[in-house]
C-alpha cells in the first residue's frame, strides 16, 4: 500500500465509513488535518462557533440517521469544550467518533502549550478512547473506533491524535475486519429465556410494555408493532423511546416517567406484567424503585446485561439485540391475545386524566400543540432539558423513529439547537425544529452564525417565559415559592436575530399563533420564533424526584375528577409526598 500521512488516513477513514459531514473547529495541532481536508471535497466540514456544539451537532446527525456522527477539535481547550457533548452522547448511547488533536507525541506530559490529557478526562464518558502515538496504529484504531461506536450498545469513542502523528507517513492498510478479544456483539437470544418470556406474556392479564431507545438503535420498530398488536399490549415509551411506536396508534400511551402521562404511570402501577424493551429503567422513569410496578412481574429485554437488575429486579429477561428477541417471540406467539377489560380500564384513565391545555392563555403547551398540528407530528424535533422538553414529549405526537432528539440522560441545556443543525445536515429535505427555552438557548445561540453561514433551514421555537422554568417549578412546589436565581433576563431576541441575519417572528397571543407557524414554515432559511408565553406554567403530571409512581401529582386543572384512591396525591399534598407511605395502588381489586 502507498504511504500516506496520518491526516490523509483520518480523511480516508471518514470516507470509508460514509461520513459526508463532520463538525469541528481548527487549532494549532490539527493544522495538518485541516490542510489535508482541502483535498477531500466529498467530506463537508462544518465550522462551528464552539466545540461543545460540534459534539451536539454530531450527536444530532447520529440521532437523525442512526449513523455515526463525527466531531473534531484541537487540543487543550478545544478538546475540553467537547466534554459536555461527549458525556451527553454517552448517557444516551449515541454512536459518535470524536477526534481530537494533541501536542506532538514527544511533548506529551511536559505541560506543552494547549496540552491536556483528554484521554484521561474522557475515560468515564466514552465507550472507549485512544491516544495514538504511532502512525502505524492509526488505520486500525480508526477502524476499530467506528466499529465500537456503532455496534452493541452504541456510544461515543474518542481518538486523540498528536500533531506529529497527523504528519508522519505509513503504508499500513485499514483492517478488513475488526477482531477485538473480549468485545462481543450481543448474543442470539437464548431459547430458554425466550420460552420463559412467552409463558409470562401468555399468562398476563394486565400487561404493559415500556419501549426505550434500544428499540430505536436496534431498529426494531416493525417487530415491536407486531409484538404489541399480536399480544394486545399497551405501549409506553421512555423519553428517548418516543417515535419507536407510532403515537397515533391505539395501543400507544405516550411517555411515562416523572412527567409522563398519567395513564402510563397508572397502568404500570396496576399492571401484572411490565416488559421493558431496550429501556434502562432510569430514576426519572421508575420514581422510587421499591414502589415501581409493585403489582407486576418485570420482564426485561436488553442487549446490555449490565442493565438487567441495575435499578429494578426483573423476574426474567432476555439478553440480546431487541430486534432479534422480538423477532423470535413473534415467531412463537402468533395467535392473537386480547385483554379487553384491561384495555377498557386504560381507556377510562385516558378519558379521566388527559393532558390539559387550558384555553384562553398563551402557554408553552398551546405553542407545542400547534407545532404538532402544523407539522402533523412528522418534523424532526430537538430539545434541551426542562419544561419545554417535557411538554414537547407530551404534546408532539411522533409517528416515526429518528425524528426525536432530546438530551435524556445528561439533561444538557443548550443541546437542542445545535442538535437540530446536525440533524438538518443529515436529512436536508426534512423539516427540522429546535424547541428551546430562554435559558438553554442562551447557552448555545452563537450557532446562529453557523446556521446562517451554511443556510441551515432550521426553525427555532423559543419558548420565552423569563424563567428557568423547571427549576422555578421545583422552587415553587418544594421550596415554598422561594425563587432563587431562576428569573432569566434575555437580550432583545429580535435585534439578536437581525444582527445574525436570521428571520425573526415574535408571537405573544393565541390569535397570532397559526400565522406565525405558517410564516416560519414557509421561510426558506433559519428562523427564530420567539413565543412569549405565560411566565408561571407548571408541567403536570408530576412524580416528585424519588417519589413513588403511585403518588403522581395530577394537573390541578383536572379539578372535575376524583383522583383514584392511594394512587394520586392531590395537588395540595405535594409537600407530604416525599414522606407519604409507599402504598401500592389498589386499582383493580384483583391484585394479589
Amino acid at each position, binding site marked *: 500500500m502507498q504511504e500516506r500521512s496520518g491526516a490523509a488516513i483520518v480523511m480516508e477513514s471518514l470516507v470509508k465509513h460514509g461520513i459526508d459531514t463532520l463538525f469541528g473547529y481548527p487549532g494549532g495541532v490539527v493544522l495538518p488535518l485541516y490542510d489535508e481536508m482541502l483535498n477531500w471535497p466529498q467530506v463537508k466540514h462544518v465550522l462551528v462557533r464552539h466545540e461543545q456544539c460540534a459534539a451536539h451537532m454530531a450527536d444530532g446527525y447520529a440521532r437523525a440517521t442512526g449513523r455515526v456522527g463525527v466531531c473534531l477539535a484541537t487540543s487543550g481547550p478545544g478538546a475540553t469544550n467537547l466534554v459536555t457533548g461527549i458525556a451527553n452522547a454517552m448517557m444516551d448511547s449515541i454512536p459518535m467518533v470524536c477526534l481530537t488533536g494533541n501536542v506532538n507525541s514527544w511533548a506529551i506530559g511536559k505541560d506543552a502549550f494547549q496540552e491536556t490529557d483528554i*484521554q*484521561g478526562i474522557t*475515560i468515564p464518558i466514552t465507550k472507549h478512547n485512544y491516544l495514538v502515538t504511532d502512525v502505524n496504529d492509526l488505520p486500525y484504531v480508526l477502524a476499530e473506533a467506528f466499529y465500537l461506536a456503532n455496534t452493541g450498545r452504541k456510544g461515543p469513542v474518542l481518538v486523540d491524535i498528536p500533531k506529529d502523528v497527523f504528519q508522519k507517513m505509513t503504508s499500513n492498510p485499514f483492517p478488513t475486519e475488526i477482531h477485538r*478479544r*473480549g468485545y462481543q456483539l450481543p448474543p442470539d437470544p437464548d431459547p430458554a429465556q425466550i420460552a420463559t418470556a412467552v409463558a409470562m406474556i401468555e399468562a398476563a392479564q394486565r400487561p404493559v410494555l415500556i419501549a426505550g431507545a434500544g428499540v430505536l438503535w436496534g431498529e426494531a420498530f416493525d417487530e415491536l408493532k407486531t409484538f404489541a398488536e399480536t399480544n394486545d399490549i399497551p405501549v409506553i415509551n421512555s423519553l428517548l423511546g418516543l417515535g419507536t411506536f407510532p403515537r397515533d396508534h391505539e395501543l400507544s400511551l405516550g411517555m411515562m416517567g416523572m412527567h409522563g402521562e398519567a395513564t402510563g404511570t397508572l397502568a404500570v402501577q396496576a399492571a401484572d406484567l411490565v416488559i421493558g424493551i431496550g429501556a434502562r429503567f432510569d430514576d426519572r422513569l421508575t420514581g422510587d424503585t421499591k414502589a415501581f410496578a409493585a403489582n407486576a412481574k418485570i420482564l426485561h429485554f436488553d442487549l446490555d446485561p*449490565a442493565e438487567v437488575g441495575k435499578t429494578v429486579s426483573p423476574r426474567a429477561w432476555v439478553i440480546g439485540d431487541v430486534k432479534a428477541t422480538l423477532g423470535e417471540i413473534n415467531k412463537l406467539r402468533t395467535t392473537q391475545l386480547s385483554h379487553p377489560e384491561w384495555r377498557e380500564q386504560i381507556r377510562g384513565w385516558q378519558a379521566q386524566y388527559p393532558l390539559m391545555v387550558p384555553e384562553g392563555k398563551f402557554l408553552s403547551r398551546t405553542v407545542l400543540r400547534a407545532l404538532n398540528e402544523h407539522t402533523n407530528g412528522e418534523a424532526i424535533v430537538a430539545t434541551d432539558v426542562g419544561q419545554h422538553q417535557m411538554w414537547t414529549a407530551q404534546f408532539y405526537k411522533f409517528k416515526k423513529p429518528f425524528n426525536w432528539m432530546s438530551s435524556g440522560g445528561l439533561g444538557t441545556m443548550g443541546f437542542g439547537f445545535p442538535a437540530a443543525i446536525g440533524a438538518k445536515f443529515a436529512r436536508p429535505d426534512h423539516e427540522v425544529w429546535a424547541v428551546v427555552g430562554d435559558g438553554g438557548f442562551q447557552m448555545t445561540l452563537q450557532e446562529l452564525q453557523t446556521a446562517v453561514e451554511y443556510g441551515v433551514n432550521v426553525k427555532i421555537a423559543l419558548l420565552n417565559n423569563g424563567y428557568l422554568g423547571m427549576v422555578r417549578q421545583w422552587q415553587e412546589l418544594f421550596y415554598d415559592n422561594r425563587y432563587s436565581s431562576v428569573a432569566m433576563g434575555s437580550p432583545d431576541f429580535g435585534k439578536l436575530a437581525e444582527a445574525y441575519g436570521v428571520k425573526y417572528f415574535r408571537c405573544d397571543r393565541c390569535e397570532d399563533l397559526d400565522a406565525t407557524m405558517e410564516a416560519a414554515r414557509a421561510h426558506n432559511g433559519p428562523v427564530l420564533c420567539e413565543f412569549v408565553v405565560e411566565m408561571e406554567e407548571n408541567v403536570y403530571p408530576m412524580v416528585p424526584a424519588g417519589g413513588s409512581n403511585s403518588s403522581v401529582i395530577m394537573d390541578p386543572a383536572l379539578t372535575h375528577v376524583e383522583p383514584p384512591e392511594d394512587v394520586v396525591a392531590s395537588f395540595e399534598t405535594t409537600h407530604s409526598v416525599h414522606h407519604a407511605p409507599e402504598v401500592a395502588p389498589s386499582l383493580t381489586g384483583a391484585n394479589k
Partner: protein
Amino acid sequence: MNTEEIVVSQKHTVTALVQNESGTINRVVSLFRRRGFSLASFNAGDCEEPGLSRMTFIVEGDLSVVEQVLKQLDKLIDVVECSALPAESSVSRELALIRVQPTAEQRDSLYNLVLEFYGKTPGAQGDQIVVEFTGSVAEVEDVIKALQPFHIQEIVRTGVVAMSL
C-alpha cells in the same frame, strides 16, 4: 431465634484478564470509583500471555454489587474476561515486606519468629532488617501484629493476587 436473612457486606475476590494498553489501569480503576464500588485491594501484573495483564480486585459489598462489578467490568473494551472467585475453590495470597529495627537483644527472637512464620529476611541495612512474608491476608496481618515489638519502620503490601483451583 432470628431467622431473617441478614445482608452483610462481604469481601469478594474478582479477577480480570485485560489488554495492556495506554489508559487501561486508569480505565479499570476509574470504573470502581465512578460507580461507587468499594475496592479494598487491587493488583495488576503480567500474565501468561504477552500483551495481557491479569488484575485481582477485592470488592466489598453484597452479591448484587459483585454482579454489577462483573457486568460493568465486562463492558470495558480492554477487559477480555472477568469472574468472581469462590473462596472455597481458589487460592489467594499477598506478599508483604516489613522493615523492622530490632534492638541487639531482639535479633535472635526476630529470626526465630520469621522462621516460625515461614518468612524470609532478604536484606538488611545497618540495624534494619527487611522481613518478607507471603500468605493469606489474615496471615499477613498476624505476622504484622507479631512483628510490632520489633519496631516496624515501613510496610509494603502487594494487595491480593488470586487464582481459581
